[in-house]
Structures are given as C-alpha cells and as structure tokens.
C-alpha cells in the first residue's frame, strides 16, 4: 500500500449502554466517563427495549449536563425495534423535541429525522456506498457501520461517501440480532409482557452455552449478542488510513475507562497495539476477543497480528 500524507487520527466515541443497568449505576458510569475518559462523542439512551426507559429517565438531564460540561458531544439513541404505538410515539417525541442530535437505529427514525442533521447507528443496514449516500442526502452526517462489515466494504463505503463521518464498532459484544420475543425473560420462565426486568440481573448479558458447554452467545433482553467481545485495536492503523473518523466503544460491564485509555494511547502512538490489546485484556478480565467480521471471517474468530501483515486464525476455544 502506498501512503501519502499521514491520515488524520480518528476520535473516540462511546455507544449507548445496551444492557439494563439500574439508574444510579448508569448515572455514575457516565459521571466517571465525563470526568475522566478521553472520548469526544457519547451516545446515551435506551436502544434495546422500551420497557426499560424509566430506569434511566430520571438521570438523563444530569448525565447530559455532566458530559457536555466535560466537552463531550452528546447524542441520543432511538429504539432499535419499534412495533407498539407507544414506541412510535417515543421516537416521534424524541425526533421532534430533542435539542441533541439523534442516532437513528430503525427505519421510523430515518423517516422522522429526514431533513435534520442526525447520525445513523450500527443497527441500521448500511452495506454499501449507495445506501450511505441516500441516508446522507436525507440529513445523516455520521454513520456507525454495521459490525459484521468486512474491511473491504468499510473501505469502499468511506471512499464513496466523503461527506459523511464514519464510525467503526471497535469494542464490545456485537449486537447480532433483535426479536419481538424476549429470550432473556423466557430463560427465566417469564414472557416479555411480564418480564419483571430480569435482564437487570445480568449487567453484562446472560451467557448462552452450547450443549458441549462452549460459551456462544449472550442474551440481553430482546437482543442477542456475541459471547466474544469485538476488539479492533490491531486494525486501528488501517482504519485510519481508510478514513474512519470515529472509533466506537460499546459499554461492557468492565473498566471502560481503562478501555478508552487503551484505545486512546494506541491511536496516539503512546503504546503499541500489542500493549493496547494487553491492556484491554486487563480492563475486561475473562473476555474472549474477536475480530473475525472485520477480516471477512466468521465473527467469533480472533486473528492475531503476526510479523507485519501476516495474520493467523486462532479459534477461540474457551
């Protein structure tokens, strides 16, 4: 690859907490992020389940104030799956009244935000430049690409859509699916309509193992996530060369400050990618990391950087 001018360094962004954390815990997490984390953008709010909103609602205003006074740019996420009239009303209200930019995570938000500057979340299907350009023509200024996209697609889309800031899902369990049914409630003998908020018992998701006791997936309410934690840290240089503007970290129940600092130091060149990766391991003990999607492999795979560009598949067998 020929390199001309050195690429501008991407900034760090924090995605919404996908899990149900209780209100005070959620608030304290963001207070600490506001005070100490090297992040430029923070998206907050509930993306997964409309039933959970009342847990965080009392704290949203103070969290936004704290983040903004620390110089962070704050956006609010829309719901990923909108089926009930109450949910439609929520997205309409958010799109109409919010003084902060909205991150659209379903098609209703795309409609309601048309003509206003907004961002696109990783749960909207943007697989090519034509789609990115269409969304840009309707007001999208930034797009967090779907986590399953391989690097070839990421590079192509960014190249074809210069007007948009692209964000890459670089850390966190991957949101793999969403359903009308709550598998999390079902696993505890309940149904969604009478769930008793049992997903709060698992602030980092509930592990789904195969019958051979191999950890495989994680339940988070109506969302199914990967067991592995996606970690694109070896890939930061190529993402910067490709023109990625932002690197998204998705909150896990771990030391997210240390995660943010590891990414920040790696991007700035204050530590090597190997060291950055080791620091991620300490920040999230017990996590299995994956980066297979980025390399066009199965998502659960980890490919470790070896001697420059050579990479070798190492299947995670926890």
């Amino acid at each position, binding site marked *: 690859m020929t390199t001309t001018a050195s690429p501008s360094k991407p900034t760090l962004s924090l995605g919404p907490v996908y899990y149900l954390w209780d209100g005070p815990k959620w608030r304290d997490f963001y207070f600490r992020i506001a005070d100490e984390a090297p992040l430029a953008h923070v998206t907050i709010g509930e993306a997964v389940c409309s039933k959970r909103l009342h847990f965080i609602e009392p704290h949203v205003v103070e969290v936004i104030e704290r983040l903004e006074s620390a110089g962070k740019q704050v956006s609010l996420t829309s719901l990923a799956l909108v089926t009930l009239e109450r949910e439609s009303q929520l997205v309409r209200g958010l799109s109409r009244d919010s003084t902060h930019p909205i991150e659209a995570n379903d098609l209703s938000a*795309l409609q309601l935000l048309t003509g206003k500057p907004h961002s696109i979340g990783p*749960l909207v299907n943007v697989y090519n430049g034509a789609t990115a*350009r269409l969304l840009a023509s309707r007001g999208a200024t930034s797009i967090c690409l779907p986590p399953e996209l391989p690097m*070839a697609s990421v590079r192509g889309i960014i190249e074809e859509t210069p007007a948009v800031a692209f964000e890459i899902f670089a850390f966190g369990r991957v949101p793999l699916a969403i359903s009308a049914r709550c598998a999390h409630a079902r696993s505890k003998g309940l149904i969604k309509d009478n769930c008793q908020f049992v997903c709060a018992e698992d602030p980092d998701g509930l592990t789904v193992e*195969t019958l051979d006791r191999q950890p495989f997936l994680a339940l988070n309410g109506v969302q*199914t996530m990967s067991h592995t934690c996606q970690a694109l840290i070896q890939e930061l240089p190529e993402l910067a060369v490709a023109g990625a503007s932002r690197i998204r970290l998705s909150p896990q129940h771990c030391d997210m400050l240390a995660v943010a600092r590891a990414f920040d130091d790696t991007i700035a060149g204050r530590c090597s990618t190997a060291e950055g990766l080791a620091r991620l391991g300490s920040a999230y003990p017990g996590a299995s990391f994956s980066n297979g999607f980025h390399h066009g492999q199965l*998502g659960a795979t980890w490919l470790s950087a070896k001697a420059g560009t050579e990479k070798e598949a190492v299947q995670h067998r926890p």
Partner: protein
Amino acid sequence: MELICPAGTPAAFREAVDAGADAVYCGFRDETNARNFPGLNFSREELRTAIAYAKQRKVMTFVAINTFMRAGQETLWHQAVDDAVALGADAVILADFGLMAYTVERHPQQRLHVSVQASASNADAVRFLVEAFAAKRVVLPRTLTIADIARLAKQIDCEIEVFAFGGLCVMAEGRCSLSSYATGKSPNMNGVCSPASHVRYRQDGRELVSELGDYTINRFPAGEAAGYPTLCKGRFDIAEERGYAFEDPVSLDVMDHIDALRAAGVSALKIEGRQRGKAYVAEVVSVMRRALSASVAERPALVARLKALSEGQKTTTGAYEKRWR
C-alpha cells in the same frame, strides 16, 4: 387476499401456478436473494420461461432481490434488477435502500415491494419507504401481532403482505447476523442462514450431535428425530437450564386467523418455502387456495391438512399472538 407462493425451481414454479397461486416469488441463482442455497433458484432463461408460463395463466411473478449489496460488487445486484425488469417481473422485492434508489432511478415504472428483510415494523418506517422509493407493498416482519397489523394498516398508504405459513424467523429479519457470527456466511450479504456447507452430524455415544461450524446446535438422544441445525432453533444451556433458548423447531401457521388478517387490512398472504420440493409447494398452495375461499364449516379440515405438512408437525402462530413474546 392474494396468495403469494414460493418457487425455488422451475418445476415448483409451474406447480404453484397450477395449484392456484395469485403470484409466485423466486430469485436468481446467486447471492442477490435470501434463499441462496445450492441447487435452487433461476437462471435468466429459466425465469423468462417461468414468467411466460405465469402470464398465460394470469399469474404474477415477483422477483426477490432481497439481500444487501456488498460494497464494490453492486453490479451483481444492479444486473439482477435490470434483468428482472427486462424479463417482465410484476414486482421486484427489495431490502437494500441503495438498490431501491437505483431501481427508482433506472426503472421508475417498475412496481417495488419491500422485502421482510428491510424490517419495516411501524407506520413511520413504511412512510419512509413509500416517500423515498414509492414502495407499493411492504412485507411485514414477523414481529407484529394481528392487532398491531390492523392499527398499522390504517396509518399507511401501502399494501401489506404477511407470512402465513412455513419457516419462521425468530429474530427480526434482515437484522440477524447469528449465522454470520458462527459460519462467516451472512444472511444479509450472502443470502444464507445456517448454511448446509457448515453443517455436520456426528454420533457421540447414544446421541446424535448436530453442529454448525464449530458449534453444537443440538443433541438428539436415540429415538428422537434429528432436525436441521438452524441456529435460532437449537438447544442450548443457559445457567442451569437446558432447552430451546429462542424457539422450538416449529413452523408458522396462521391459517386459523385468515378472517382476522383480512379484517386487519392485509392484501396478501405469503407462503415461505423456496427451498421446498415441488410436491410440497403444490400441496400447500392448493390447500391454502381452498382454505381462502372455504366456508367456516369447511375450513378446519383444510387447516388440519396444512398442519400435517408442517415440519415436525408442530406449529406456532408466532408473534401474531401477544403471548409469544
């Protein structure tokens, strides 16, 4: 209500037409459609012949081009739309916004249907697709109750098609990368889910183990019928509980609710099953055709016949009933 029937092969296509389909849907033999399985789907020439056969019998043909264009390979998807239009498709069924924009620009007269893979689950979402791409019909995701559908129908200026019979996605369609996570083959980009190329069965003592890639999807004790390891229909362990974490190996059957769906404002009922053989297609289409026009007294016998055709004989009404959630 129209009856929209699946065809994975030219033979199944003719059976569906003869058995009473109002429209048959099918796709090209490549990654542009969400049933990209070996041995299935249509060449351009086969589609030309099929459309001619259907037109003579006043049956419509819908061409599903309902995966998402892979960046850099858009030509494959563009060509599929161009060819479907040139061959006389009555509608193209699309999921990707970029491809919809292309179709509207190049073929403004072409009738555009929104695939279930686009995940339009509410009125504002449908308005987006109608305003941006002049969509004439939307296939609803299997996330809505009949009451939700009735409420939605009143709010939109677009026809509604719903799945009535056959395979059942547990996850919102077009928003699931479980298969991609386990096998590297993506439903959205490659048109496959839990692909046969990654399926393995092995005997372990008295149990038959089904695997997808490196993951055990189920274990069947001697005497239990072994099903195909579709990822979301597998048996897993969660804490101390063992069972079907997402959904049992069931299929969808809402034929008991035909009248409610009609009253809700549904324009078309869709049968899933492009991967099914022609005999199955012929039987399901003909029974459903009769069920649609049967009197209330005649219907139970027909519905019972359909149940017998379902995989494993077990069926669900899925999200159409609230308690499924």
